[in-house]
């Protein structure tokens, strides 16, 4: 019973946070919404049996990515100014798109029959050790590639954000 309540709390986190992120006109609230939503997700991950991924979600996503977004916002936006006027037509269109998409996907999900397994896999299969082993055997290419992508992203980010030299050729 209590477990159920906790899960539903997490689901509520996810959806309320998502709603805040989607509808808020104040960019800071949107970021907070994203944080709440991600936190809820981390809870759901925990509930789905993966404490490691949940921890990573909190550490990297909330601790890293969201904070980076906050910094970018502070660097680029004067916080005090009035948010832009809402564009009702655009919002309506976006909501319509989302509702149609959700309807279609929900319909398909409800109609789908997945080959579900009877009981969750053993505790051992979920362990961090198993994950690490798989990353270095099965998925070593993926792992290496990911590190390459991160390296490139860092170089690129520095390069793009670097202040441009005065133009020589104009």
């Amino acid at each position, binding site marked *: 019973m209590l477990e159920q309540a906790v899960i539903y709390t997490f689901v509520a986190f996810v959806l309320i946070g998502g709603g805040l992120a*989607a509808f808020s006109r104040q960019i800071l609230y949107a970021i907070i919404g994203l944080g709440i939503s991600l936190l809820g997700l981390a809870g759901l991950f925990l509930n789905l*049996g993966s404490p490691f991924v949940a921890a990573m979600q909190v550490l990297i996503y909330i601790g890293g990515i969201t904070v980076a977004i906050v910094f970018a916002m502070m660097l680029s936006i004067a916080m005090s100014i009035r948010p832009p006027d809402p564009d009702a037509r655009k919002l309506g269109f976006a909501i319509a798109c989302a509702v149609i*998409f959700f309807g279609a996907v929900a319909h398909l999900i409800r109609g789908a029959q997945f080959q579900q397994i009877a009981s969750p896999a053993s505790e051992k299969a*979920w362990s961090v050790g198993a*994950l690490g082993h798989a990353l270095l055997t099965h998925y070593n290419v993926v792992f290496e590639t990911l590190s390459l*992508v991160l390296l490139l992203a860092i170089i690129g980010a520095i390069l793009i954000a670097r202040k441009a030299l005065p133009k020589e050729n104009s």
Partner: protein
Amino acid sequence: MTLESYLLVGAALFSLGLIGALSHRNLIAVLIGIELMMNAASLNLMAFNRFVVTDPTTGQIFVLIIIGLAAAEVAIFLSIILRIYRAYHDIDAEKLTKLSG
């Protein structure tokens, strides 16, 4: 909760992300919307991982990789935002006419 309800939560999160990405004029808000969409995929993967798959490592690794890629993506995108901000910060009238012409 059943698999189906997890998937529905995922779909709802995706749709919320879609609203964020489609309705905002602010690039950061758009980025947030897209992050939500990616997280909906993560939720799906974890749910399938728990209910469908016999070996649960794959889904978890998938989600970990998504988190890593999202970090890279955000880094690039934020630097682009800073670049645009800077370009328009020291904007002058001449530049404007150049753009609109």
